């Protein structure tokens, strides 16, 4: 469908907003359920005699589990749309069914993973399962809703050649890849190891020795998502929001031409410069490390 420029920009802004929410909630869902790379430490902790009260699902890698969830929502939505349901209702019902299925995976995954750690005396806390699983389902519902809505807009309004389930699958895989790359670092690098020395990477010797005390009482996954919602989640949202917005913005403004491609290259160059500015700032703030300074002085 060909839209005028104002309408195209409005649609693009809506997609960017949906993507930002989806990215943010996807990362928070992976924190509250503990998934992807940081979960390796949650899995390792009982083997180091660090028993904990953290949910441990890790259904699969984040892109695959989110792709599964999004494509499930997309398929249900497509079926309901064919049955002449109102689009918004179809997307809500599709996302809800996908989230429930995701919740089943989360529950069985948590029980299965903890059961496999019997020899390390890691208990399966039923209270953790009872009040964390609904939170996982709720987060996943919002993610699914946003991703299927983006897929619907691309298919029905913008006229993309792919179907709703396939577009939802692609965005599910992408949101998982971004969440795994961005927000999980905040959970794995900072929240799990708040006892490490500030301003340096995590020493390998600390692997598995995760922090188990919360701001009040014993730490659980709800405490983790509270912390990560302050930075990790929103940063992931920005990552996906920028992706969705800037991958379509050049062609929306400059059409399907080489000029649009050139603008895309320019955007990437600006991002590289911004990354360099951040690099300079953190290098000045935290390094070089003390022993290296001493060595330099000794050498001089």
């Amino acid at each position, binding site marked *: 469908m060909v839209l005028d420029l104002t309408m195209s920009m409005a649609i693009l802004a809506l997609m960017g907003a949906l993507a930002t929410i989806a990215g943010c909630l996807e990362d928070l869902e992976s924190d509250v359920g503990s998934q992807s790379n940081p979960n390796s430490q949650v899995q390792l902790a009982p083997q180091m005699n660090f028993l904990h009260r953290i949910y441990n699902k890790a259904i699969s890698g984040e892109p695959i589990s989110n792709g599964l969830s999004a494509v499930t929502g997309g398929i249900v939505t497509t079926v309901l749309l064919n049955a002449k349901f109102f689009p918004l209702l179809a997307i809500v019902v599709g996302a809800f069914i996908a989230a429930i299925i995701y919740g089943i995976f989360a529950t069985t995954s948590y029980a299965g993973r903890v059961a496999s750690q019997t020899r390390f005396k890691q208990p399966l806390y039923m209270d953790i399962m009872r009040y964390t699983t609904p939170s996982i389902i709720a987060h996943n519902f919002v993610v699914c809703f946003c991703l299927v809505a983006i897929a619907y807009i691309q298919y029905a309004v913008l006229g993309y050649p792919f179907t709703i389930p396939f577009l939802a699958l692609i965005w599910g895989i*992408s949101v998982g*890849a971004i969440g795994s790359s961005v927000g*999980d670092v905040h959970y*794995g690098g900072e929240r799990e190891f708040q006892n490490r020395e500030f301003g340096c990477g995590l*020493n390998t010797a600390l692997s598995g020795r995760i922090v188990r005390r919360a701001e009040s009482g014993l730490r659980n996954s709800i405490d983790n998502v509270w912390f990560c919602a302050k*930075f990790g989640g929103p940063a992931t949202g920005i990552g996906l929001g920028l992706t969705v917005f*800037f991958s379509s913005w050049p*062609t929306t403004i400059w059409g399907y031409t080489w000029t649009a491609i050139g603008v895309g290259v320019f955007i990437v160059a600006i991002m590289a410069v911004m*990354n360099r500015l951040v690099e300079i700032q953190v290098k000045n703030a935290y*390094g070089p490390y003390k022993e290296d300074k001493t060595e330099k002085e000794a050498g001089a």
Partner: protein
Amino acid sequence: MVAIDPTMLMNIFLIGISGTLICIAVHFIPVGGAPAAMAQATGIGTGTVELAAGSGLVGLITSSYMYAYEPQASMALVMAAGAMGSAIMLASTMLAGGLIYAYGVAVPFASAQVKKDPITGQRQDTYVSKGTQGQGIPTICFVSGVVGAAFGGAGGGLIYFVLMGIYSPLISASAAAVAGVFTMGVFYVNSVIPSYGVGGTIEGIHDPKFRRVVPKDTITSFVVSLICGLVAVLIAGGMV
């Protein structure tokens, strides 16, 4: 005996080339795996397959849209659209990830594979903290990742372009769906092949591992992609 059509051979060859482009692309992307997620290694804190496929598939969306709305689009333009989408996805991811490393975890960006950054010339070894293999995404890793993502997106765009040329005359309505799913399959095949070579982590073009594994992985990928291309052409026989 069935006559061998030169166009068919060219299509298989192009799919082989595009699969190889995706395979080479994976080596450029600075992937740190689980250690990077804990700020124990340089690069992006996730796996090779997840990241390469995630960025490449965004490129597939942009290239397919370009193909659908610019019927006169050349192969180069469709490939460039794919490259742009993938590069923007990976640049956004690395920028947002860099913000987390800098202000969420508080680590300076440092490569453990080179003493000085080949682009900025800044010392790296003095910023690598004790007990780690570097942290964050230094400039060389960022640039290498963007170039890699562009290769991957261009490869995806090329497969889609070739497959649409084969399937459109046969099944016009569903051609995009079949071509899209097949492209995704080729993406995953060629993202997995380099994973064995890089062994989970690679910093990018400056990593010594790059020169060591790229030739072997490229040949493997080309052969496997040719087989994928053959299958892509063969299944078109059932569409008539």
